[in-house]
């Protein structure tokens, strides 16, 4: 018996060490970016355009570009994602069509981001004639975000007790009325959490926007959805690989702003989740 106890002690120690070896690099990564970046993140850096071949000035157009892209992505992916999840949970019968949708969602979530980039380029930039534009980039990111939104919405809808629907039906409500008034309101927190999470992913993605929207250097703000924009992740890629003699602190600062933006979005989703969980009545 004693030997088994000792073996357990050793095994749990090994598991703890393995976990620690994951935790330390995570903390170091954050610390490294923050420590090297924070001194260059000034008000001017956030609110000014880049100057002198991006070696001076700020990253304002890139921040705006990323925010515009995130909003565009949400406008397309939220309705389609939520509606298809509603279809899967509330309408679909267990037939071939439903299985095909589920398989498609699984498949969409696995497609490499660069393949989305190729697809967006052929469909939106060339075939639909949007050119390299906010519209094309947002649509590409939106399709990429769909699986996460669908999965999150599906889980949120499924967690609403079935009795809610039964009562609504028994009072003579139609299917859509039931969904609209008795299911969706209770699923909103889950949907929001999933949406914010998928949008924070979209904000950090580079590969899908490479050929669909991202501008190498464009120190002005977009005027229409057919304009190109700079974007934070692409900007970081460009200044860390394509610009010789780039001042390091500006690269770090750009990375810092990008991480901060993504973290804030994640934080919003965590707060939403905690807030609604407290209000949950059943």
């Amino acid at each position, binding site marked *: 018996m004693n030997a088994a106890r000792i073996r357990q002690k050793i095994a749990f120690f090994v*598991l703890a060490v393995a976990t620690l070896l994951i935790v330390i690099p995570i903390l170091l990564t954050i610390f490294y970016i923050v420590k090297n970046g924070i001194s260059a993140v000034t008000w001017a850096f956030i609110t000014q355009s880049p100057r002198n071949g991006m070696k001076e000035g700020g990253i304002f157009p890139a921040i705006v570009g990323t925010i515009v892209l995130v909003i565009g992505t949400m406008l397309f992916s939220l309705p389609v994602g939520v509606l298809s999840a509603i279809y899967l949970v509330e309408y679909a019968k267990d037939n071939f069509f439903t299985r095909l949708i589920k398989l498609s969602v699984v498949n969409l979530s696995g497609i490499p*981001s660069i393949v989305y980039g190729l697809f967006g380029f052929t469909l939106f930039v060339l075939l639909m004639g949007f050119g390299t534009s906010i519209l094309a980039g947002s649509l590409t990111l939106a399709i990429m975000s769909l699986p996460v939104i669908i999965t999150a919405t599906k889980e949120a809808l499924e967690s609403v007790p079935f009795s809610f629907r039964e009562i609504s039906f028994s009072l003579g409500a139609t299917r859509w009325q039931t969904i609209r008034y008795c299911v969706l309101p209770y699923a909103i927190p889950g949907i929001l959490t999933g949406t914010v999470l998928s949008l924070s992913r979209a904000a950090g993605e580079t590969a899908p926007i490479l050929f669909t929207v991202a501008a190498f250097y464009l120190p002005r703000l977009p005027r229409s959805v057919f304009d190109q924009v700079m974007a934070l992740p692409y900007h970081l890629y460009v200044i860390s690989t394509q610009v010789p003699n780039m001042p390091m602190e500006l690269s770090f600062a750009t990375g810092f702003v990008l991480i901060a933006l993504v973290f804030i979005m994640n934080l919003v989703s965590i707060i939403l989740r905690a807030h609604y969980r407290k209000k949950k009545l059943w």
Partner: protein
Amino acid sequence: MFRRISEKIIESCIRLSGLLVIIFVFLIFLFLLKDSLSLFGQYAVGEFLFGRNWLPISEPPKFGIIPLLLGSIYVTVGAIVICVPFGVAAAMFIAEVAPHYLKHILKSLVEILASIPSVVLGFIGIVWLGPFLRNALNLNTGMCGLTGSLLLAFMALPTIITISEDALVSVPRTYKEAAFGLGATHWQTLWRIILPSASSGIIAAVMLGIGRVIGETMVVMMVTGNAPVIPKSILEPLRTLTATIAGEMGETVGGSEHYFALFAVGLVLFIITFMINFVADVCMRRSKK
């Protein structure tokens, strides 16, 4: 009457959205296939799949995918070998060993890691990890397969930890109670009962991790040295399928052989990830039962 009509409209929107998801997957496949076929009209399929040289701008150009495929395989195998033991160990620790408060902290840390954009990790690879490895291992260059593997292993950890942990937690409580009842220690129960019962979920986690690593673009483009040659070892510069598309797409002329070749590379990626995700999905459903 109005209510009826608006209800009909909404219901058709819902059905249409469901259909749209299928259409997207179908269109992605179709577009990749169409442009790949344009390549295979001019360039033999066999030479594409088995060619040992990727020389898109030489005369005549060569589009052999083997160096790129090997690049992807090297980097992926390296990453998986590193991250699976750590990831599964961490999942076991979080699911069974860690006290309640620590569990939440660890899970949030894993979520933080999942949210770090890949381009930031690529940047860290350039400024720190690459130079560090070059000095530590005395290499010619730090921009090599190993740097990519390490960073990709790091990136794949959240996928592997989260899904493995789910699988471990969803093993029925009765299994554990029965093992305890027979006098097994916590570790014996975890190692001999819980881990084997969760194996299909863990396999799914590994498959999804592989899918994530193979499809990752920015990190490998930034840190693996971009050399489209057959790599002799993981310590040499190499180039993956994804990085080739991302790196060369901007330089091609639309409608050229080179342009179509990049779509053919995309098709190969699509098929690989499709198969990986399909297997993962099957494993996942088996573990849910």
